[in-house]
């Protein structure tokens, strides 16, 4: 599925929730289901220091698509990672580079992507894009 379609799907899912509690509970549950990064990839090299919560990201290329796995020590951060991974993983590097994260505003989680939040998510998105650039270079 294209990134835009996945993002629309997520917006639809979140529109069913009536208040912040339902949204957060959903995100926390998503955090629990996120495929954990393999322990061997939970290295300092893959660590994004977010000051408050730690984020690990691993990327690999399979059939011209980038597969991301990730983890965090904070579950709300992990829930948002789950949403981001769902949109960006298993996509062509060029599509990852063209995509944006505006949908996060629409599902009421904008505050978590604030650069002052110090949860590692802004750096994580940058990191996803960096991987996409690297793999794109390999392909061309």
């Amino acid at each position, binding site marked *: 599925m294209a990134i835009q379609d996945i993002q629309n799907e997520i917006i639809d899912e979140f529109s069913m929730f009536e208040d912040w*509690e339902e949204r957060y509970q959903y995100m926390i549950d998503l955090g629990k289901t996120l495929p954990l990064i393999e322990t061997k990839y939970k290295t300092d090299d893959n660590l994004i220091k977010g000051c*408050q*919560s730690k984020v690990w990201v691993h990327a690999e290329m399979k059939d011209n698509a980038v597969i991301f796995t990730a983890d965090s*020590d904070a*579950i*709300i951060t992990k829930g948002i990672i789950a949403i981001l991974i769902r949109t960006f993983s298993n996509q062509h590097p060029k599509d990852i580079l063209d995509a944006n994260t505006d949908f996060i505003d629409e599902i009421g989680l904008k505050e978590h992507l604030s650069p002052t939040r110090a*949860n590692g998510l802004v750096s994580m998105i940058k990191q996803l894009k960096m991987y996409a650039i690297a793999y794109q270079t390999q392909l061309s």
Partner: protein
Amino acid sequence: MFNVEHIRKDFPILNRQVNGKPLVYLDNAATSQTPKQVIDVIVDYYSNYNANIHRGVHRLSQEATDAYEQARIKIQKHFNAKFSHEIIFTAGTTHSINLVANGFSSLLKKGDEIIVSALEHHSNIVPWQMLCERTGATLKVIPMNLEGELIMSEYDKLLSKNTKLVFVNHISNALGTINPIEYIIEKAHAVGAAVLVDGAQSCPHIKPDVQALDVDFYVTSAHKMCGPTGQGMLYGKEEWLKKLPPYQGGGEMIAEVTFEKTTYADLPHKFEAGTPNICGGIAFGAAIDYINAIGFDAIAKYEHELLDYATEKLSEIEGLKIYGTSKHKTSVISFNLDGIHPYDVGTILDKLGIAVRTGHHCAQPVMDFYKIPGTVRASFAFYNTKEEIDTLVNGVKKAKMMLS
């Protein structure tokens, strides 16, 4: 008579809502809120007598200078300094510490030792590490125990004739522990070392008497005690302030300037280069007036009640662990829920309108000691209520339910 409902009316910000809920502000150790008596002074300054101080012959400059120097005298009296020129206005605690650390660069040599405590804020570690790098002196650390108290028998062992400086906070920002600074000062002086006490956390709760303490340097920030940010002070004994070289060059701090040589101004101006935060200094004085009008004894008694109440109620939550359990502590509770990241707890509490701090509180060595990434820290001021603590406790219970 201490009346919290009456006091709360002084703080306009306490009326606001956050995420649709009444604000419960429990991040007082990071910054305190500002009463209208102080806000009025700031508005009055900019509305009526904003001018550059000292040297000005015109009326506004005279009024601003008088108010600024009156504030210095208020601060002198509050801390019981011997002279008003022992009070140096700074931008805050960190600035004050850096001023002293920088001054000691020329007084230390290789082989000299500096002692800090394991409970320090980064601002009281990094400047001394930099000082050690510049001078070749070495940094020693007073260890702490599980209750979050400094171990005095270990401190005794660290002291020697090589000890030149001891730096310790009066109260730990991460845990709220009140350190035995009287003992620390006495022992340091016995080996001829100077002592700097970081009072950023103590000044909202305690009225330190710098002469009785016989402390060499005492530093604090106005914004921790109902004053504005960007304003603080350094108290230094006259003999020390005379000995230390100026920190920054510029206007205000000179007596005479030629291209061959500059002579420096007398204390306190020697350390106050450039146009200061005039309004900040005046508002700092107003904040001290405000707190003194309520009275430190009444504040201490009330805050202790809040601390006991919060400790009791939070301890009832299964899986909640409090870090820093010294009998000597102020109204700060640092805690974690078993298996739950403090960042997650803080996020849920924010959605409920409750402001707490999460993270390492700029005291990573303390967190490393407990082997935790950080804590949730609720810190109470005299304008908080037991009802707000109930809201916090219910919020923590809700966070626990959602996150586990």
